[in-house]
């Protein structure tokens, strides 16, 4: 009896505590639908003149790993229209994000909205509710949306495209007597420029002309320039073990070992070394603009398109590009939350102002067509350097094993003395083993200039 009473007391205490934490949600109640507000959008339109969730208070969580203020801006704009809705962005570091999110979604406890990286497409797909939007409307407004249509449904699209570029320190460039005319177009010219930008004290490098430390995952995809796809003609089998990859790797190794324009031991992270003013040039993707603005605001930099092997010849592709994805809707969220999330996504996809700021933050070529001719975006040095995406390949959502295995191969070659042939063959085997457990299919065949064996 006493035992039962004690358990009862503990249970009651627990109930009380639970009640304190998740009691009445409070929040604003809206009785009357707004009216007279402008409808936004081109083909896809968003009409805010309505009650959302019947005017009752509701809260949604929105998980992301970066750019919190830029994404929260969408939520803030939406909340002004519908004050009964609270959308709270929750930032998680990248590793924690991909550890927690899939397991939360699997246990039906995840956030109503969450940001997507397409390398985790297969992981997230079972938990994504399709947008309650006609696919043809999205295709009309968003470049590349067609690539995301499955069974006439869309679970997310790209809001912008990003690729790799060469970033250079303008002060170092000028100090070396270089002008805009010296911008290298080929890798041979690039080597000469890197040499001019290098400073040494005897054998010791004081300023690296070019630093690619920790940027290996991206360099691995430059095989496109040599006319090699990343997957075989079946679009399923990895094809990273090819002469193009080995030639590229050897070129970069020579930059360090023969030309001595950089070193594996100088600036272990190229981005930080560039930001700290130790390295004159690095290769990095467009998102670096946001990182530099946040961590190294004092640095004055320029960008130019990644060089190619032969002057005057159009390569099979300059590089790959990747889309930055719009948020996904958790199909395990409550019906009310999903309904609000669907409404919010219509707003998100038509919110030109916040979309422009988001695209500028990441230096993206915008996928939202009304922003395509925007003067401010076009003047962005990163977007400008990127030029047309016609000769860039989007290989589709690439499973993370491509990047992790390629990085490991490069590290093994550079730091552990493994022969390039052995390391690349190892990466090929590792990727093949990981892909064997997935339904991966490359989107390379959708490239406008696709050839199964381009070389």
């Amino acid at each position, binding site marked *: 009896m006493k*035992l039962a009473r004690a*358990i009862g007391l503990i249970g009651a205490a627990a109930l009380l505590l639970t009640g304190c934490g998740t009691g009445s949600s409070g929040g604003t109640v809206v009785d009357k639908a707004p009216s007279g507000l402008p409808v936004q959008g081109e083909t896809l339109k968003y009409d805010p003149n309505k009650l959302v969730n019947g005017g009752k208070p509701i809260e949604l969580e929105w998980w992301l790993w970066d750019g919190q203020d830029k994404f929260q801006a969408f939520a803030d704009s939406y909340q002004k229209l519908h004050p009964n809705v609270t959308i709270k962005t929750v930032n998680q570091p990248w590793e924690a994000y991909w550890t927690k999110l899939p397991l939360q979604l699997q246990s039906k406890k995840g956030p109503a909205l969450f940001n997507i990286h397409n390398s985790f497409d297969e992981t997230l797909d079972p938990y994504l509710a399709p947008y309650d939007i006609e696919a043809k409307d999205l295709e009309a407004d968003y470049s590349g949306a067609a690539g995301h249509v499955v069974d006439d449904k869309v679970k997310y699209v790209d809001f912008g495209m990003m690729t790799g570029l060469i970033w250079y320190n303008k002060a170092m460039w000028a100090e070396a007597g270089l002008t805009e005319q010296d911008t290298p177009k080929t890798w041979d010219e690039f080597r000469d420029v890197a040499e001019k930008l290098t400073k040494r004290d005897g054998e010791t490098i004081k300023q690296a002309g070019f630093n690619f430390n920790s940027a290996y995952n991206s360099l691995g995809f430059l095989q496109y320039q040599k006319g090699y796809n990343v997957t075989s003609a079946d679009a399923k089998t990895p094809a990273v073990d090819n002469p193009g990859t080995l030639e590229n790797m050897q070129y970069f190794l020579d930059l360090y070992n023969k030309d001595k324009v950089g070193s*594996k031991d100088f600036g272990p992270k190229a981005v930080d070394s560039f930001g700290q003013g130790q390295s004159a040039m690095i290769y990095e993707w467009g998102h670096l603009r946001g990182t530099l603005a946040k961590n190294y605001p004092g640095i004055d930099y320029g960008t130019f398109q990644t060089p190619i092997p032969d002057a005057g010849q159009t390569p099979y592709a300059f590089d790959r590009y990747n889309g930055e994805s719009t948020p996904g809707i958790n199909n395990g969220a409550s019906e009310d939350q999903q309904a609000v999330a669907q409404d919010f996504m219509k707003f998100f996809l038509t919110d030109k102002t916040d979309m422009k700021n988001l695209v500028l933050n990441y230096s993206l070529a915008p996928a939202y067509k009304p922003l395509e001719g925007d003067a401010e975006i076009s003047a962005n040095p990163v977007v400008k350097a990127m030029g047309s995406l016609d000769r860039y390949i989007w290989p589709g959502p690439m499973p993370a094993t491509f990047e992790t295995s390629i990085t490991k191969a490069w590290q093994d070659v550079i730091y552990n003395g493994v022969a390039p042939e052995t390391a690349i063959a190892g990466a090929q085997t590792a990727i093949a083993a990981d892909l064997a457990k997935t339904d991966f299919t490359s989107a390379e065949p959708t490239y406008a200039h696709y050839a199964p064996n381009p070389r």
Partner: protein
Amino acid sequence: MTLSLRPRVSKAPPGGTPGISTRRRVRTYPGERALRNTVIIIVAGSLLLLTAYPIGLAFVGSFHYWNPLNGAFDFVGLENYTTLLSSPDFWGSMIRTGFFSAVVIFFRVALGLAIAVAIFSQLTRGKAFFRTIFYMPTVTPLVAVAYVWQMMYNPQTGAINTFLGLDLNWLYDPQLALPSIMAMTIWKDFGYAVILFLAGLHSVPEDALEAASVDGAGAWQRFWRITFPLLAPMTVFVVITSIISYLQAFVQVLVLTKGGPGTATQLISYLIYDKAFVKYDFGYASAAAFVLLIVTALLTLISFRLSVGRKNSLEG
């Protein structure tokens, strides 16, 4: 209703002879039994729910291709274990983990003991200050420590190369990367051993040491012949808890090197993390975790047996 806190004395068993009962009389307080039972139920329930159940599930899962994200849970028999045991990646990680643990434990014990003896010495003033200083890294979060050390290890801007006038790439040179992680771990953890050994030193009988002095034993002899053997239980405790802890070392690897360069610093826990939470192959990761569990249990048992053997030989 009033609450009496006076102990209640249980009656002698029926049929027993008053005054000559062999049973000890049990004194209880009102509600004591209920409280005890409640606590036991909560602790046992928590253990079952939070420890036994996940371990059992992982054990079963280690015989399956298990990806919780797409619901795959297909029986594959011993395939995960055979793949694991024939994988150079796994054995490399195990060997690295063994080496890492052995070195860190050795230095943790040696430094901890040496500093504890120094602080305990009657010649040392400001004992509380030194205790605090040496214990401080132990209570600092490991993630924060690892980030600071990562900055210190930077070959161009880091404090270590700057102060020592060196030009070493601590975290990217395959020969230096693992020792660099070890150094950080030893610095972070040896303070814990200092505190434990200090507690042990207080229990060493003063008269034994004085008697040895009278017999002409020097400071070294007193330490090796009396103090150190009497600290054996504490040493064993430090070693066993360290074995359990370092075979699972993970955070420092994640922050400092992510297992690189290549796999030069990939310890077994990082391999398990990579398989489970990057590639979502929970079956393989569970098999690796079970092998680690068996190794940990065996090493702990061996340490324990050795200490018992040593104790018996000392007493015999």
